[in-house]
């Protein structure tokens, strides 16, 4: 479980996160939703420690990150998998080497075992036959999936996904959502996922946090979200494809 207490983050005079508190439970997909520029990426980066906070605390299983020793932090990081918005694959390595990289670095498995594990995870993200291609040679959606494979190859305890399905076709997007959900349940991972895709909210959100201009505006389950009376949240939801979907459904109902 990850606990976030009153975190604040600003760049110069621009306040990006203002007093956000929440709890991320294990075995659940915790969704952060919000429009572009609302601070989702910054929020994730603060959580994993890539950005320093101005104030506030972040606790992993009750342990405050700010007071952790270097060694403890390093250990924690080996339990974190992260999928970046831009995939962040290593350009100079092939798909296979990219996914194998954490295994090379942190395990003492034999090459054959490592290769087996790599193929296993690549298989899970529906990527075969691309093992020897370089990141520049594959599509954006494929990069996302390779990055996901790399993030889960070490069986992390915490999985952070920054917009895992932007740039994916609806079908693959669903596959990725399902996959994230499955592994979350299977290994009891604490998953935190940024998205602005309402399909994936309805598909995979166990708990939803709505960020609006750097503040937590709403928090609840996907069952509640449609009935919420928050104006900003409604604006956000019904500006999405979900609305069009709903509209279509309505039009299809015979009079």
């Amino acid at each position: 479980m990850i606990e976030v207490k009153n975190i604040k983050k600003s760049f110069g005079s621009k306040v990006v996160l203002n007093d956000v508190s929440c709890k991320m439970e294990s075995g659940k997909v915790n969704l952060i939703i919000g429009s572009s520029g609302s601070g989702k990426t910054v929020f994730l980066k603060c959580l994993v420690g890539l950005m320093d906070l101005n104030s506030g605390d972040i606790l992993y299983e009750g342990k405050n990150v700010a007071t952790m020793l270097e060694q403890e932090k390093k250990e924690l990081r080996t339990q974190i998998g992260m999928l970046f918005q831009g995939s962040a694959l290593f350009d100079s390595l092939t798909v296979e080497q990219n996914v194998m990289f954490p295994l090379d670095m942190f395990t003492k498995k034999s090459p054959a075992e490592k290769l087996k594990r790599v193929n296993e995870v690549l298989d899970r993200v529906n990527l075969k036959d691309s093992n020897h291609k370089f990141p520049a040679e594959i599509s954006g959606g494929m990069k996302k999936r390779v990055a996901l494979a790399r993030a889960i190859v070490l069986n992390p305890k915490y999985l952070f996904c920054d917009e895992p399905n932007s740039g994916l076709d609806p079908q693959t997007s669903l596959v990725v959502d399902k996959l994230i959900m499955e592994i979350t349940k299977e290994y009891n991972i604490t998953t935190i996922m940024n998205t602005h895709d309402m399909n994936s909210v309805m598909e995979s959100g166990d708990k939803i946090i709505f960020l609006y201009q750097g503040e937590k505006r709403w928090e609840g389950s996907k069952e509640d979200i449609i009935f919420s009376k928050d104006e900003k949240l409604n604006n956000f939801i019904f500006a999405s494809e979900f609305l069009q979907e709903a509209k279509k459904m309505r039009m299809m109902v015979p009079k």
Partner: protein
Amino acid sequence: MIKLLEHFGNYLIMLKGMFSKPENGRVYWKEFIHQCYELGMGSLGIVVIISLFLGAVTTIQTAYQLISPLVQKYVIAQIIRDSSFLELSPTVVCIVLAGVVGSKIASELGNMRVSEQIDALEIMGINSKTYLILPKIVAAFVMIPCLIVLSMFLTVWGGYLAATLSGVMSSQQFNQGLVKDFVSFNLIFGLIKSFTFAFIISSISAYFGYHVKGGALEIGQASTKSVVVSCILILFADYGLAALLL
């Protein structure tokens, strides 16, 4: 001025942060070998061409200036030898390498920063400074002096070719000059210079590349800056070493 101090401080912090225990020695070793290969192969061609021509041109121009009948021909070979060991190979070639190697390191690291690859390393629990910068600096420390030694020989050889082909002097005269009054400290001094410059080139360009903020435009700026700053520092260090050790 304050900016300069800030840069210098951050530079020292980066160097200090670079020394941490590798997470896995084998991976780091592989990266080091890879960097050596890249650096060596990437700049071998230009070093060969530059050295040969530097030697040839210096020979012909020295011969053109030394027309006094009082000066023996072999002196030209001595001049080539000493200027190659002392200045041409270490300094001139390193300034070229600052362009070739420095811009490559800066843009590679800058690109990794901008596309979040450095963040990805940090998240995995890898010290990105140790993994990305240390192997590059050590590789430069190993490879650049090798290239400079090669360049020293090629410069002299270029001089030899020019001298004999253009008929400035015979090969006996050239060889006589090569061995006459050879001061081995000159060679050592050239090597000290090349180690110093190797460190300047690799660490300065790594600094500018690693600290890129923004996008593709800033990567270009960082690589230009790293070349300019390394060149200036090389010249400063060149003067400093000469004043100190000669």
